[in-house]
């Protein structure tokens, strides 16, 4: 019994994303950012997007392309300090920015991917982070309700994938990718290589293809994936 084959062209995979969609983007800095999928999203041009990503990349990279192209209505993120465009658009109120502590962002996404409604934590008690959040006590201790963060789409970068969508990530390029792949209604993966079934050892699959909807193979890696020269 073979596994389902989810290979897709990049154009077809991204064409499902329409105006107003919420889109998770993997990556922490350059590693793991799905630049080719983002570039196709810029080419196809849906607007009014809610983008969920740890950071806003840097000038002329990834999220910055979407911002410069006016496609982003809201950014849910933990840190945008390396992207002057994002800082400027936020300060001009041209985009809405929701800051979430990095580990809470990761966990809100994971909890969505695990089919839960939210979680309770004491992170941020006594700081501005608690504003607007429902208080829930657990065993008499005060906590804050953090709601599950889902999205319509997740765009994910993997080092290797098979046709079913089993994924393998390189080094620190894993970061938010497997979490986001679990938390979206439709998960689109770009892989540096699609390898034959069985090439990935079953123990070394980082994310099961059960969470993946479409797999796009990258023919070459544009320069943006390379080491950043500062």
């Amino acid at each position: 019994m073979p596994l389902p084959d989810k290979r897709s062209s990049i154009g077809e995979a991204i064409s499902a994303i329409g105006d107003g969609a919420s889109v998770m983007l993997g990556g922490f800095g350059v590693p793991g950012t799905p630049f080719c999928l983002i570039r196709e999203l810029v080419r196809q041009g849906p607007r009014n997007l809610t983008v969920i990503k740890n950071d806003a990349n840097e000038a002329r990279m990834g999220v910055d392309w979407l911002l410069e192209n006016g496609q982003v209505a809201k950014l849910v993120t933990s840190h945008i300090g390396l992207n002057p465009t994002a800082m400027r658009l936020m300060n001009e109120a041209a985009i809405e920015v929701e800051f979430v502590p990095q580990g809470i962002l990761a966990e809100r996404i994971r909890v969505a991917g695990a089919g839960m409604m939210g979680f309770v934590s004491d992170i941020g008690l006594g700081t501005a982070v608690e504003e607007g959040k429902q208080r829930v006590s657990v065993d008499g201790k005060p906590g804050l309700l953090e709601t599950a963060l889902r999205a319509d789409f997740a765009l994910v970068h993997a080092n290797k994938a098979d046709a079913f969508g089993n994924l393998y990530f390189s080094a620190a390029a894993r970061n938010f990718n497997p979490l986001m792949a679990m938390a979206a209604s439709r998960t689109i993966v770009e892989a540096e290589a699609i390898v034959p079934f069985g090439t990935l050892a079953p123990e070394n699959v980082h994310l099961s293809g059960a969470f993946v909807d479409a797999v796009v193979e990258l023919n070459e890696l544009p320069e943006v994936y390379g080491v950043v020269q500062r």
Partner: protein
Amino acid sequence: MSSNAKARMLKRAAADILSGMTVNLGIGLPTEVLQYVSPSTAVCLHSENGIAGVGQVSAPEKADRNLIDAGGAYVSIIPGTAFFDSAVSFAIVRSGRLDLSLLGAFQVASNGDLANWKIPGKFSPGMGGAIELAQKARRVGVIMMHTDSKGNPKILSQCSLPLTAKGHVNRIYTDMAVFDITAEGLCLREIADGTSLAELEALTSATFRVPNQDLPRF
């Protein structure tokens, strides 16, 4: 239940397992369905203990001591199998990645309630993963003999046993019939060869709708 009627029930349930699906098969009859799925059907079998892409049952001499399914059977891998921990395994279930969960049952009610984990005072080994499988798969199928070992109906207007999940069963396969649970209640879809509508009504403790057109036989 004649082995012939059982085989036809299993085959009928297998026909609803389609290419592209991720599927969880419960212990017993649900697992037996697998032998009737065409080998060319592209399906991902999920097991609660942390496997996607479960392979065939292993011959005893080829068993891997570390590779069982959730029912404890020694199984094998296929090209593309992945292993993960129990939290990820149930993330697949709860987040709606199971296209189909097939379960056994003590009782099913015409409103989709399922009871399959506890008989107070007689059988209470714990629910294992049944509650999540029955509540969160996109489609929940029950496969069971139409009556219990004493001949009593298992399809009821209301379950008397503790529920596994409330109102989540979509389809019931028995040796006598196939029912859907719809907004209009229990609907007969198909009837087994050699079973009459009168027999079916006598052995079903819930009212059900019968379509106007001819009933498919299986």
